[in-house]
């Protein structure tokens, strides 16, 4: 019940925002939601399965470029472009996953990086389709049921609804028995195998799911921006989204979204005041690691728990006495 309440509130808030916010802020919010989806998708493998990828931009880029190229050459119909983006992300994830899941830990990180850089090189070199280093510009606005989404507000509504859908889907997946298995894999894969789980299949499924929603985020970014650059598929993009997940709180649903919001806001706001925004961003990372290692989500939870502890329970509890035997 509570869940539905939360969702309706979010829905109402989103519906109302264009009437409250300026278009600059709507743009900002749209971007946050897109990166929120992107971070959520990465979180499936990083936060839940414990596979840290530094190549997630490959899916974002694949989704973005596919949507853009389809819109330019075939049809700007949103269902078409989004469908194409999803299809290509699936194929890409299936291929990359096949190789990357053979390794683990830091090697996984680097192998995903390698594949995404290969995709990057491909995009960069295929000047004819992708515009190469100049990027792909002049992409027509998406069309939904014959309606051209020509302004920020429409795009925002599309992004916001898809965000809610993705959030719900991923929420259900991670809460499901399947999600529990992923968490188990992150904890102790060997034991899970002994329990009878074919862990490779689970990891592969998680990887593909993660890739799909990465692609969705990419396609949305194309609708939002009307322009795609190779930098969207570069490793720095993978790095940024990984940071969003880590700073927000890996392995939680809300965390990555909060992380995306923080990073997008910081980049936008800080860089209007100073050219030294990298220093400030860096300082924020450091502060998080040293003082709030469990991320934004962790902070809010700690604060919440702190209040509870002070009011409800004594601070030190005696575990030994709890034992029932």
């Amino acid at each position, binding site marked *: 019940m509570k869940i539905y309440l939360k969702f309706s509130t979010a829905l109402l808030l989103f519906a109302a925002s264009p009437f409250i916010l300026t278009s600059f802020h709507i743009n900002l919010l749209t971007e946050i939601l897109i990166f929120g989806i992107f971070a959520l998708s990465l979180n499936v493998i990083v936060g839940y399965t414990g596979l840290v990828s530094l190549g997630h931009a490959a899916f974002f880029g694949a989704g973005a470029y596919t949507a853009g190229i389809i819109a330019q050459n075939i049809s700007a119909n949103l269902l078409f472009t989004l469908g194409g983006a999803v299809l290509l992300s699936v194929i890409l994830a299936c291929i990359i996953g096949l190789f990357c899941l053979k390794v683990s830990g830091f090697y996984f990180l680097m192998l995903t990086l390698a594949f995404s850089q290969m995709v990057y090189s491909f995009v960069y070199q295929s000047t004819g389709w992708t515009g190469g280093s100049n990027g792909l510009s002049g992409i027509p606005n998406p069309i939904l049921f014959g309606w051209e989404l020509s302004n920020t507000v429409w795009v925002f509504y599309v992004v916001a609804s898809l965000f809610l859908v993705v959030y719900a889907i991923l929420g259900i997946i991670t809460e499901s028995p399947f999600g529990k298995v992923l968490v188990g894999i992150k904890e102790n894969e060997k034991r899970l195998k002994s329990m009878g789980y074919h862990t490779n299949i689970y990891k592969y499924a998680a990887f593909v799911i993660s890739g799909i929603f990465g692609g969705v985020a990419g396609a949305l970014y194309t609708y939002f921006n009307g322009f795609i650059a190779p930098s969207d598929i570069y490793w720095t993009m993978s790095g940024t989204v990984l940071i969003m997940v880590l700073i927000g709180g890996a392995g939680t649903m809300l965390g990555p979204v909060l992380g995306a919001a923080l990073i997008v806001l910081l980049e936008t706001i800080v860089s209007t005041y100073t050219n030294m925004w990298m220093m400030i961003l860096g300082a924020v990372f450091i502060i998080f690691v040293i003082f709030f*290692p469990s991320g934004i989500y962790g902070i809010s939870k700690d604060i919440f728990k702190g209040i509870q502890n002070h009011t409800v329970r004594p601070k030190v509890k005696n575990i030994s006495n709890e034992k029932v035997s």
Partner: protein
Amino acid sequence: MYRTLENNQSTTLEVDKIDILIAQMVNGLSYGMLLFVITCGLALVFGILGVLNLAHGSLYMIGGYVGYSVTATYTQSFWLALLTAPLVVAFIALIMERTLLHYTYKLGHLSQVLLTLGVAYVFHDIAKIIWGTNVLSIRVPESLAGSVSIAGQLFPLYRLVIIAVGIVIAVGIWWVQNKTRWGAIIRAGLSDREMIGALGVNISLVFTSVFVLGGILAGFGGVVAAPILGLYPDMEFQTLILALVVLVIGGLGSIAGTFTASILVGVLETFGRYLVPELSMFLVFTLMAIILVWRPNGLLGKQVAEG
């Protein structure tokens, strides 16, 4: 290449080709050794501290810039730069380890990645404030400035010296890691910090030393590479990615692996540029992918037994 050969109707074509291959081989070797000089500090710190130091590129950059300041501004001596820059970087590494990294050992790899990336960002802007955004470069010292002819082809002497420097460093690190008690203690500390403390080893001190040593190597690499690669904004991230690739291809925790991988990447990139110039960037990552799929722990990485 084919274009060139088509136009070259002479009968010495075969000989030329072999000369070129030899020349490219030497190029590859020297580039590979340059990669090794740059990467070894990262490899050391990751291989034995388990810390993926994303600020390694920044330390390398600071080494280069300090080296520049020493040669260009205060004195004119490359050798003095080679001495002071690593020390300055070592000091920075010391501060970094004691005040920041120190807290993250218990938090795990990801926190360290985030932390060191943050540090790299901060250093990026600090370097910009101090040294500006222009492209700078260190002049090769007179004594190493000339060129040497090998197989009828000219090579800068400095490049050949780098090959020697790389080998010396490799042997040095290998010796410390394998032939001294140090190596064992550090690797033990990696798997169970608490326990190594209970055996009477002040592991934080050891960790600090290793990190500082990594800093020294980074600073040294910065000065050595600057005459070839130059100093410019964003150099640290370019270098970092390349270093990570070399590190992974070689296999974590193995200096011999890093050494092998440096040469492999150096030679492959050089020949890649020669044969398929547009794809050289693609090639390195493909190499990494192939190697990892074939050997999931890199070329010489050890499969660490589970406890």
